[in-house]
């Protein structure tokens, strides 16, 4: 029995590999397993190679996992194109199409001796059982269910639902293909059985979502009533979800003529009193920059989601990177602080998106949610979320007495001024990008400009004290500290647990508020550790460098950063942690040396 499995599959575009992965994760979620599914495609719009990885476990899963336990190659060319995305090793069970003619002792996995190699006539079995090679993926599902104990009933039920529109013949054919896979597995048992343990009993049903969809759902929960945007990979599913759902809640979705107009309409909707959001990716963020400046100076709440992908420019649009932090923090003209939040998983995207709306509304500011392709497009089982425990904040509107002699930008102790909206009698004011007095009248006065800058910047200070936006795990006296954000937080969490299992004392800081930089949160963490790593998926180590602008980062705290597309894996972090521990040990021994 094993408590978890990491399964990687690859094939040609029409082979239905991704569809098989989706069937597996639905079945896993229904049965009560924890799971993450990631998909990867060649750059073709249709056809070409495709692959997916499924990590399924009886325990919570924190990231898509590293080396595969099971590798399925419908053909070797396609499998090998995914390279580091489908890493194999000595514990991998390799299943492949025997019609490829590759001998079991000649599989093209350089330098690796897999645990077992299983050639299967997958195509022939599909033809014989279902009468079509289209059922190859169903044969694979049968094989996986048979060899690894993956919930055959739930898989079959899911298949039936999926194929319900294709008629009884197709369903019956797939039933036979699935049975053929199961039967083949029973006839050829693994030399070393590796069946997945039963899921832990649970009364509450798990959810199954990807980051973009749950981000959109969070917006609805937070009371968003307007979305304006422009399609861009890998963020478009946010608009697609809202385009299906938002109308039901009295809202509207505008697919604008460009990125600028998308955010422009959001600014307008916010001015008119509605909670509003846009979503984009790096190049779109560049186009939105001027409009974000307007929202900052007009002090209008809005949420702008940037699902990061490999950049600059078109870059690697279907793969994840964390290289838009500088952009989120610095791409503004004038003296600007825009809050930047980063979710760390699909589940976390819900709470972080709601919090982004809350911060936007409370502080009357645009808020950037820095998601990334990894979180946004992977499917993940999510434990039920108790939404009654999540607060929803609305902007501070003027009370009746404040509408007499109303001043939109009145200086207050909190630096936040009551915000009226068209339709509100007495609240009439001029919103503008031009610098303005407390009433909203345009001005070129240096004194007023300084005061208004102070107002707009200082109002965000309380954010830095929100300790809930910073999570620390691990023993308080651990001398080694890890710092990771976004999707890499999941890898860092797993690395920390692996290190703990080796007796290494490590703790981890995961910030969800990246900007403004909370000096206090980082100081207290850095003071408590001797060495450590700032782990991020950007060539320049962007968070590490932003932190150094505001915080004394100890010398022992080093960046572990590299370009995106291939996520940093827990094993790699663990290796670095071991090096850190050895360096600590050396210092310790030096200190014990008697002085000559």
């Amino acid at each position, binding site marked *: 029995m094993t408590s978890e499995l990491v399964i990687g599959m690859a094939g040609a575009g029409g082979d239905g590999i991704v569809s098989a992965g989706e069937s597996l994760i639905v079945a896993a979620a229904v049965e009560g397993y924890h799971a993450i599914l990631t998909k990867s495609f060649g750059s073709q719009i249709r056809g070409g190679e495709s692959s997916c990885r499924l990590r399924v476990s009886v325990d919570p899963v924190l990231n898509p996992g590293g080396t595969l336990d099971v590798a399925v190659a419908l053909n070797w060319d396609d499998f090998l194109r995914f390279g580091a995305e489908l890493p194999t090793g000595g514990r991998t069970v390799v299943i492949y199409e025997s019609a490829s003619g590759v001998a079991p002792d000649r599989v093209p996995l350089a330098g690796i001796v897999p645990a077992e190699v299983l050639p299967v006539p997958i195509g022939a079995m599909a033809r014989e059982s279902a009468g079509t090679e289209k059922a190859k993926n169903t044969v694979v599902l049968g094989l996986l269910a048979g060899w690894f104990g993956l919930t055959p009933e*739930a898989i079959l039920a899911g298949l039936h639902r999926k194929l*319900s529109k294709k008629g009884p013949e197709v369903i019956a054919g797939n039933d036979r293909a699935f049975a053929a896979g199961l039967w083949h597995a029973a006839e050829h048992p693994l030399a070393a059985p590796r069946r997945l343990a039963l899921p832990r009993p649970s009364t509450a049903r798990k959810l199954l979502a990807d980051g973009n969809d749950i981000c959109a759902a969070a917006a609805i929960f937070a009371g968003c009533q307007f979305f304006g945007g422009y399609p861009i990979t890998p963020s478009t599913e946010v608009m697609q979800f809202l385009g299906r759902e938002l109308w039901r809640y009295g809202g509207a979705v505008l697919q604008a*003529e460009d990125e600028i*107009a998308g955010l*422009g309409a959001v600014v*307008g909707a916010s*001015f*008119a009193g509605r909670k*509003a959001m846009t979503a984009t990716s790096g190049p779109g963020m560049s186009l939105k920059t001027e409009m974000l400046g307007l929202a900052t100076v007009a002090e209008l709440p809005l949420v702008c989601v940037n699902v990061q992908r490999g950049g600059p420019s078109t870059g690697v649009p279907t793969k994840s990177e964390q290289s838009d932090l500088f952009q989120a923090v610095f791409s503004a003209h004038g003296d600007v602080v825009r809050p930047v939040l980063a979710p760390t998983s699909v589940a976390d995207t819900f709470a972080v998106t709601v919090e982004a709306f809350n911060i936007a509304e409370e502080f009357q500011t645009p808020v950037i949610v820095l998601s990334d392709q990894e979180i946004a497009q992977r499917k993940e089982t999510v434990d039920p979320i108790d*939404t009654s425990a999540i607060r929803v904040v609305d902007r501070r509107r003027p009370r009746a007495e404040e509408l007499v002699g109303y001043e939109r930008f009145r200086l207050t102790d909190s630096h936040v001024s009551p915000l009226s909206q068209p339709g509100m009698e007495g609240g009439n004011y001029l919103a503008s990008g031009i610098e303005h007095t407390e009433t909203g009248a345009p001005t070129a006065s240096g004194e007023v400009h300084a005061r208004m800058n102070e107002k707009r910047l200082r109002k965000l200070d309380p954010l830095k004290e929100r300790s809930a936006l910073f999570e620390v795990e691990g023993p308080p006296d651990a001398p080694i500290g890890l710092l990771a954000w976004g999707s890499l937080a999941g890898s860092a969490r797993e690395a920390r647990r692996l290190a703990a299992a080796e007796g290494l004392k490590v703790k981890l800081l995961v910030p969800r508020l990246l900007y403004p930089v909370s000096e206090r949160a980082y100081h207290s963490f850095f003071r408590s550790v001797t060495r450590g790593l700032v782990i991020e998926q950007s060539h320049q180590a962007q968070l590490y460098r932003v932190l150094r602008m505001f915080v004394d980062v100890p010398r022992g705290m080093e960046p572990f950063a590299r370009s995106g597309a291939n996520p940093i894996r827990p094993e790699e972090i663990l290796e670095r942690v071991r090096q850190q521990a050895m360096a600590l040990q050396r210092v310790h021994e030096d200190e014990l040396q008697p002085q000559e």
Partner: protein
Amino acid sequence: MSTMMATQFRSDLKPIWCPGCGDFGVVQAIYRALAAVGRPPHEIAFVSGIGCSSRIPGYTTAYGFNTVHGRALPIAQGIKLANPDLLVLVAGGDGDGFSIGGGHVPHAIRRNLDLTYIVMDNQIYGLTKGQLSPTSPRGLKTVTSAYGSLEDPVNPLLYVLAYGAGFVAQGTPADMAGLAAVIEEAIRFPGFAFVNVQSPCVTFGQAEAQLRAHKAGMQKLTDLGHDPADRLGAMALAQRYGEALHTGVFYRDPSPRPTYEAAVRERQTSLGAEAPSRARILEAFLPRTSA
């Protein structure tokens, strides 16, 4: 009949425009048109871009939004979608509408939200002191075209007619009553309405584009016997932009298309009936293996 007075729409802010600027006449015409329409200032959102003319919302008592260069239309559409009950006015210059923001105009027209878009067209960039504009005539010498412009101008009238605007008119402050009347009609038109105002720049504009010349040369479309329901006739007349100054209504769709916001409201109503509560939105993610 409205009981509102034009003065109720005038704010305390003193315009920064040059003495004699055509925009003074435009804002007066807007006060009159708004008084005639009769909606109170707090139910009006007045959006503009950047340029001399884009200062105009601040000179009214409406909710004003002086936004960024060229983006007044998308912002105005967001406002109208968020609250369709508002009267939404959009204004700006020829650079704002037909150069930096030119890409937004066709989309505002094809969506057909009930907006009134007033362009103060002076064929020059005044705020930045006299550069070439998208409606400057070919050959015009300016500080950025020292030897004369090498480009033909955009024809704003033909442009919006070609994209299918339901209401297209032109006016000049040289004829205040006529200008106020077309703006009022534009506001009352149920859908996207465009008014091009030949608004002279006294500081950087051409001599032949000043109020005196307008007064002498303008031709009322009604005097020409033009039928505003005749879209092709309107396009033929609009072709003479730059050589003739036609005032009045070029085109008024006799059977206006439904507005975008009306379609949105319909969709909200038809889908809203089955709306679960927001708190239950996560139920969308319950995995299902049975039908």
